[in-house]
């Protein structure tokens, strides 16, 4: 629904923009009241379009799924690092542990940044 409104708004804005940017010679008459209404409508559309783009960027993801995936990542990272503790230094498991820890930290931060804080 929002998408449909956005497309409609952008189409309207595009049409208005073409007219809006048209040259107006010095000898041309001042805009009529109809043109002024169109101008106001165009400005309103631009404002709504900007609001829409902002709200699109701030859509809250499915936090239940985000929480589950983040928790899976961190549980697996913890498991891998527990295994690593029992391995000789420099084993391949060390690299997996380091990568997993970084992914867990990043998952927590990314989830939090999108409004899904760790409980």
């Amino acid at each position, binding site marked *: 629904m929002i998408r449909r409104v956005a497309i409609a708004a952008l189409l309207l804005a595009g049409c208005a923009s073409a007219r809006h940017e048209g040259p107006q010679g010095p000898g041309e008459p001042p805009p009529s009241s109809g043109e002024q209404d169109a101008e106001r409508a165009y400005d309103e559309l631009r404002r709504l379009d900007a609001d829409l783009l902002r709200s699109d960027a701030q859509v809250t993801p499915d936090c239940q799924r985000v929480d589950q995936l983040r928790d899976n*990542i961190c549980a697996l990272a913890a498991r*891998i690092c527990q295994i690593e503790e029992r391995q000789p230094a420099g084993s391949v498991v060390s690299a997996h542990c380091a990568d997993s820890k970084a992914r867990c930290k990043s998952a927590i931060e990314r989830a939090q940044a999108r409004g899904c804080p760790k409980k």
Partner: protein
Amino acid sequence: MTARGLTLVALTALALGCSKAPRDGEGPWIAEAARRHALADERLAAGDRPAARAELLAVVGASVPTDVPDADSRGVLQDTYFRLAKLDLDARDPRAALADTDLGLSYGKPADLFVANLLIARGAAHEALGNAPAAAEAYHQALAINDRLLAETLGDKADDVPGEAP
């Protein structure tokens, strides 16, 4: 919580994510598989693991009709092999569990929760067999899939996600 408990938390959470009831319009093969899974749940609730296992084996033993899309049959079969592996792990038979995961993964390895589940079960089987590096490798592959799915859910760009692609 013990390490084993942690792994099982992940297994359970992933399994919940994959369980699904048959939808209207799904073919008879998928409906039959769902019925067998439900029966396996009932057998497990009654403490009858062998009967639960038999229900799941019936799913993987039935031939898949040609009109079932590959992606659907893969999901059903991999979910079933995951459950079989979990039963074998619970029964302290990691070799059988490893064989279950081999069979499950033979249907493909796209980055989804069916494959992640099988990799976690594979990691647990390797751990039980004392093969720690193989266990860590399987867990790490499962982790990378979860990370990729998280990135997709959050709409992240690839640059935002640390580590290598799964």
